[in-house]
Structure formats: structure tokens, C-alpha cells
């Protein structure tokens, strides 16, 4: 059995394999790259195009392994989709962890509240965030199967990466998407850990010279659409080096795409001419290239950007602009990575009473302020940095992060050289598969957060006052995969025949709370998640309305998801609490 590592990314997905004695390596992915053209590319852009009949002829969508395609996934979807934004699903992964919507409802392509209500809007096919993710995974599976007909992907050991910040619902939904794509057994792995595994795979045993007990590595992952931080500590385990993931940050919807748009807005103003949608796209493409050149090593003084004429007449209609190094550094380095103090905090604009439903983009574009907050929250300063994500390829951005962390920590900070920053996560996932088979060192860490269930205090009802809510710790931080915690008996009950809903909370900074600890629900650091619920049907044994005393059990599965169980105290029955993915206000 081979190992497949899948990086299910917000903007790009990648595939790697390891097997037998072969070291982990990434695989190119066959996909539709143009109308009726199929070729391999190193990554699969995570875009889904659902064209109408006049927009793309079905013959142009066909794949060697699937003649009846009515949609496209990958490069052609992204490129043609830019001209058909109303048919294009993008950032499905960010929607997968957006609690403001029902994540299993068909809401993508998202049209915004205004157009949602507009009866003039043409319908068209729509999919759920789960289904869109499933289609990316299904494409990877089918592409593999086509190349390896005797060794189907579903029979291999499959690892899928998720952001460390994914909550239990988003993790569960990722597993559901994998199942929908035909992967019955997958294991989840956090992306920053995967990036670290890629570093371990690339460095081989030499990593033991890079790091020593007491070192703390910051994994700084800035991708196209999201930013993710984790801390990994190197400890001494009876004379051997051990790795422990000690902190993960929040899910920050901020990344390289924001930077490209910012630069395009600057250049667009200088052009002084209104651009149509396609010229705007060409401008953003040009700005992305300029960004990579101007922030890299040996940057030129300026990069010309040409927007070719829209019609068949090319030369006369070409718009010319230029981005200088000073402009790029001022806007991108100082704008997105400003020099800030260790006690800086990101600005949080208070949401208005009515806010359009959409992705909860970060309000503060300063990635360094988010980083300062993350490090302060956990009270640990890193000794080393491992970069990941396409944006962090830029030498000047790496230098800025290192400069700041060095200033905050008051000592030198090392940079760990890892694998290709675009492909590291997939590669690391494949390597982790080998680690699970006993070939290599494993990062310990378990669950990144502690989880709590809300319990209403028993007290006389007072009009106008909601009864205070206590949070009962059901799963302490750091639960390893495959482990189960039983809660001490408590006065919990399920009412037969009624859907019982429990409020559900998480905390990233309360390591000391043991299972069964009871704290106030408004304690600092506690974040409310989607509720969990259970309907216990009446049956021969139990009549409707009857109260069944239960105790709680938390189980972290081998897959990497969290399950909560209610076990009847009389021993007759156990029920799994389901995550509610319904819309909430």
C-alpha cells in the first residue's frame, strides 16, 4: 500500500506520494488546461467552474477518464472562470470553516445577499462547500487512478491536510468530503505540521544539528488566501529529541491575493484609465509577477507592466505602467508586514448591526500584528522560523519577519530551510504517512484546543435574565489521536423525543483545564463554536419525554476528528452528539 499526501488548499491543491523505500515526492496532476486540452501541472488550482450551456461547450471539458464532464476543476476552471465569476466556485475551503452559513447547503458560487433575493438572477447549478471540496479530491483520485490503473487511490493510505485552526466541524466536513470523493479512509494532518514534516523529510537526519532541546520553531504559513501560525517545541525525551506542537493560531483570511489586489489598485490609479474586468485581471496577473520579482533576491529597480490591448489589435492599444521597488516595498512589505512592537494587536472593526454574509475576511491587513498577537497569547518566543506558502518565497518578507521576531525575542532567530514552499504541505503529508509506519520522528501535540459544553445553571427563572451558562470541559487540550476521555458523573440528561442542543466552546490557551472542569462560559479565551445536538428517538424501551441520565465521553479518532458521546448511565445505549452546521445568526 502506498501513501498519498493531499494538500487540499484554499487556492491550490497538490498531491504527493511515498511508498516502500521511496522518499516522499510530489506528483504532477493531469487536468483541463484549456478548451479541450488536458495536460499535467504541478498543482491543481482549487477552482470549480459550473458553466451554463452557452458558456462552455461540454466537449471542451472532457477528461480522458471521464467523458461526461459537465464542469471543470483546475487551471481551465480558474482561467475561464475569471470571465464567468457567477459560475466560479473559489476558496471553498474558507467557506468550509465559515460558521455563518450552512456548510452542507448549496450556496456556492456565492452571490451575496442582494443578488440572492433578486428574482431576475438566473439560477444555474450550485454546490455546497463540502461538495466543492469533494470534487477537488475526486479529481485527484481519478487522475491518480488513470495513471495507476492497477493501484487505485482509494486502496492507498490517504492523508489530507487541514489548517491547524480548523474547528471540529470543519475537520468532520473534510472527512465527509473525502468520503464523497471515494476515499473511505483518510487521516487528517495539520498543515503547519505537514510543512514541518516536509522540512524533516528534506533535511534528513541533519535536522538534529539544526535544533536542540528548548528551541521553539514558528511555522509561518502565508498562502494565497490564508495565514496560519503554529509553534513547535523541541524537547528532550530521555536523551532523544522530541517534537511537540504547542500552539496554533486563529484562521486568518489574509494572504498573497490581498497583496496582488493592493498593488493592482496602486498601479491602476496611475494608469488613470478605467479598466474593464479582463484588463483588471491582466493587471492583477502582472502585479503578482512584479511582486515576486521586486520582493525577491536581486530585485530590479522597477518592473514594467503591460496590459495588452483587449481586441485583436495588440500593440497600439497596450497600456504601459511600471512598479518600482520602492513602491512595492512600501506597499507590500510595510503595508502587510509593518514593523510593530511585540505588544501590537490587530485592529478589529466592530461589525455593524447588519453585515452582508460572506467570508469573514481579516480587517487588519498587517500580518505582523496578527503574529505579535499570536506569540503574546501563548507567551513563547520562537528561536527558529520555518516559512511555508507561496508568499513567503519572497526574500524581503522572510527578512522582515526574522527582523521583527529577533527584536521581540531579543536574540538571534534561525531560519530553517525546507522544501519548495508551494508543495511542502503535500510532501510533508506523504512523509507523515511513513512516520506513522515507524520511519521517522513524530510531532506530538494532540488536539490544539480544549473543548467545552455549555450547561445552564439550575436557578429560579428571572424575567429578562438568561440563566448563566457554565462551560464543562469535555476534552482537554492535547488529546492524542485514538484516545478517549470519560467525564466524571454529572447531572446531565437527554430528553427522549426532543432534539437536545448543547452550546459548544473551544479554548486555545487553557492547557490546565482537565476533563470535567467547570468554568464560566464568558471566561476570557473561550470561543463559541457551532452547537452540538442529539435527538434520541423514543422506542420500546424509552417513552417520549423521559429523561435519560447520561455521562459524556470525548473521543479523538485515528482520523483526527473529535467525537462526543452520551452514554446512558444505566448502560442501555450510547449516542453520538452531532455537529450542527445550520446557519446561525
Amino acid at each position, binding site marked *: 500500500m502506498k501513501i498519498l499526501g493531499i494538500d487540499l488548499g484554499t487556492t491550490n491543491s497538490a498531491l504527493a506520494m511515498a511508498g516502500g523505500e521511496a522518499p516522499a515526492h510530489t506528483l504532477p496532476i493531469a487536468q483541463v488546461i484549456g478548451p479541450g*486540452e*488536458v495536460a499535467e501541472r504541478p498543482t491543481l488550482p482549487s477552482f470549480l467552474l459550473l458553466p451554463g450551456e452557452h458558456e462552455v461547450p461540454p466537449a471542451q471539458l472532457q477528461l480522458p*477518464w471521464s467523458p461526461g464532464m459537465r464542469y471543470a476543476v483546475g487551471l481551465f476552471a480558474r482561467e475561464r472562470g475569471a470571465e464567468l465569476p457567477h459560475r466560479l466556485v473559489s476558496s471553498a475551503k474558507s467557506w468550509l470553516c465559515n460558521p455563518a452559513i450552512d456548510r452542507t447547503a448549496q450556496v456556492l458560487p456565492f452571490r451575496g445577499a442582494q443578488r440572492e433575493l433578486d428574482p431576475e438572477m438566473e439560477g444555474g447549478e450550485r454546490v455546497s462547500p463540502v461538495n466543492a471540496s469533494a470534487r477537488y479530491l475526486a479529481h485527484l483520485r481519478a487522475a491518480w487512478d488513470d495513471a495507476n490503473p492497477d493501484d487505485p487511490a482509494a486502496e492507498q493510505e490517504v492523508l489530507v491536510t487541514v489548517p491547524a485552526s480548523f474547528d471540529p466541524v470543519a475537520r468532520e466536513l473534510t472527512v465527509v468530503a473525502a468520503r464523497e470523493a471515494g476515499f473511505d479512509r483518510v487521516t487528517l494532518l495539520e498543515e503547519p505540521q505537514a510543512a514541518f514534516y516536509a522540512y524533516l523529510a528534506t533535511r534528513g537526519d541533519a535536522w538534529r544539528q539544526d535544533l536542540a532541546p528548548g528551541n521553539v520553531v514558528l511555522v509561518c504559513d502565508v498562502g494565497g488566501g490564508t495565514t496560519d501560525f503554529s509553534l513547535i517545541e523541541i524537547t528532550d525525551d530521555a536523551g532523544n529529541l522530541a517534537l511537540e506542537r504547542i500552539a496554533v493560531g486563529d484562521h486568518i483570511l489574509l494572504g498573497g491575493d490581498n497583496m496582488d489586489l493592493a498593488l493592482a489598485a496602486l498601479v491602476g490609479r496611475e494608469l488613470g484609465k478605467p479598466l474593464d474586468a479582463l484588463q483588471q485581471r491582466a493587471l492583477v496577473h502582472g502585479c503578482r509577477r512584479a511582486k515576486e520579482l521586486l520582493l525577491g533576491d536581486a530585485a530590479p529597480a522597477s518592473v514594467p507592466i503591460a496590459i495588452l490591448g483587449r481586441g485583436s489589435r495588440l500593440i497600439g492599444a497596450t497600456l504601459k505602467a511600471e512598479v518600482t521597488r520602492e513602491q512595492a516595498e512600501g506597499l507590500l512589505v510595510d503595508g502587510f508586514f509593518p514593523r510593530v512592537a511585540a505588544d501590537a494587536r490587530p485592529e478589529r472593526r466592530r461589525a455593524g448591526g447588519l453585515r452582508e454574509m460572506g467570508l469573514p475576511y481579516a480587517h487588519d491587513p498587517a500580518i505582523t500584528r496578527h503574529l505579535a498577537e499570536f506569540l503574546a497569547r501563548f507567551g513563547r518566543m520562537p528561536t527558529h522560523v520555518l516559512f511555508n506558502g507561496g508568499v513567503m518565497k519572497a526574500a524581503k518578507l522572510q527578512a522582515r519577519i526574522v527582523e521583527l521576531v529577533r527584536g521581540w525575542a531579543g536574540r538571534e532567530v534561525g531560519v530553517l530551510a525546507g522544501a519548495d514552499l508551494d508543495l511542502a504541505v503535500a510532501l510533508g503529508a506523504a512523509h507523515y504517512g511513513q512516520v506513522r509506519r515507524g520511519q521517522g520522528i513524530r510531532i506530538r501535540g494532540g488536539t490544539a484546543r480544549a473543548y467545552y459544553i455549555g450547561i445552564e445553571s439550575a436557578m429560579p427563572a428571572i424575567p429578562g435574565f438568561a440563566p448563566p451558562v457554565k462551560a464543562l470541559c469535555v476534552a482537554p487540550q492535547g488529546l492524542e489521536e485514538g484516545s478517549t476521555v470519560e467525564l466524571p458523573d454529572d447531572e446531565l440528561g437527554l430528553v427522549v423525543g426532543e432534539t437536545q442542543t448543547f452550546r459548544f466552546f473551544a479554548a486555545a490557551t487553557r492547557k490546565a483545564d482537565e476533563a470535567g472542569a467547570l468554568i464560566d462560559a464568558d471566561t476570557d479565551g473561550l470561543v463559541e463554536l457551532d452547537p452540538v445536538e442529539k435527538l434520541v428517538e423514543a422506542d420500546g424501551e424509552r417513552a417520549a419525554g423521559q429523561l435519560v441520565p447520561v455521562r459524556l465521553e470525548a473521543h479523538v479518532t485515528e482520523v483526527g476528528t473529535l467525537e462526543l458521546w452520551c452514554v446512558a448511565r444505566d448502560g442501555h445505549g450510547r449516542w453520538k452528539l452531532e455537529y450542527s452546521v445550520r446557519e446561525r445568526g
Partner: protein
Amino acid sequence: MSRLILAFQCFFLVLFGKKLPPAATKFLPESTTAVSHPEPAVTAKAAKEQAPRPEVAKPTSDGKDKAGKDTAVGKEAKAEPDRPKVSTAQHHRDGALALLALLQREGRLIDFLREPLDGFSDADIGAAARDVHRGCRKVLDQHLSLEPVVPGEEEAKVAVPKGFDPAEIRLIGEAKGEPPLRGTLRHHGWRVVDAKLPALAEGVDRMVIAPAEVEL
């Protein structure tokens, strides 16, 4: 003049029962060239499995009826006997057109070549050419691996070995004696080491290398 030499060469080769030189094959009638001339790598297998047909069939959109479930995409290499017979000539033509479509899509090459340059300054042409170059270069890099036929610096002395292939090395000027020959490398030549051209779906009209665009 060189044709005269070729003609004499062919005369003696045929007389002694040897094979014709590659340069001579282009003078053969069409039906024989398809067999005697090596096919480009991408379609070589297809050519062997499907008898070449002289007349070019127009691509039909109802390929489904003939093809059954396997209408889809260019797995020509694994062609089954009951697949629609698409002529080799059409495969060649579609491949060439698809490459043109790629160059146009990524680098606007057709627009560039079709636009009259009169009246534009070199700076204007240069600004556009930079983008055309970048786009077309990307297509080359993604789909073709190229290497020089003769490694080494141009303008340096090189030895042309005995038994060299005249299709690989073109001699300029008169050879004195038998190879190995000494000469100056004027152009190192280009060889495609690997052509990863896109597989092409059937039922797509490749004659349209850039569709008209109408904004709504």
C-alpha cells in the same frame, strides 16, 4: 545545384539497393512518405495503429455515436480498434492548431504576428513584445524540453564524427575528405527532448484557435 547532387546520389543509391537519404523523401509522392518518414513522437503510435487516410475528415460534434462511451480525450496511444478513425493527417493538423491556440492564449502570438507594425514606434512594439515573449516562452517551457543538438559554444571549433546524421548536422561549405570533419559551430541547433503536448478532446473544432469574445 544541391538538388542535382541529391538526384545523382539517389540514382546511385537506388542502383545499389540502398535507402534514400532523408532529404530525398520530400520528393516522394504523398502516399509513400507517411510510411517511410518517421512520425513526430507524440503521434507515432497512433500512426502505426491507424491506417493513414488521404482525405481529411472534418471533426464532427456527434462523435459520441461512433465512439460509444469513449468519446473523450487523446489517449490515442491506447486506441481501441472500434474507435472512430481519425486520420493521421487530422491528428497532425489538430496538434499543430492546438499549439497555435496555446501560443495565442498565453502569449497573443497570432494577434502579434497579424498586426501590421507600420506606424508604431519601437518602444510600443517592445512593450507588447515583452509580454508576447513571456507568454510564448511559458508555453515552450511547460510543454517542450529543448536542448542543443551539438553542445558547446557557438563560434567554437567542433569535430563532426564519422557516421554523423546529416539530418542532425547541416554542413555548410565543401567537405574535404571523409569524416571526422573539422568546422566551426555556427548554430548549435535545437532538439526537442520531450514533448508533453496536451491530450486533445475530440469534438472540439481546433480550427478556432481563438474564439470571438463578447462581453455582456
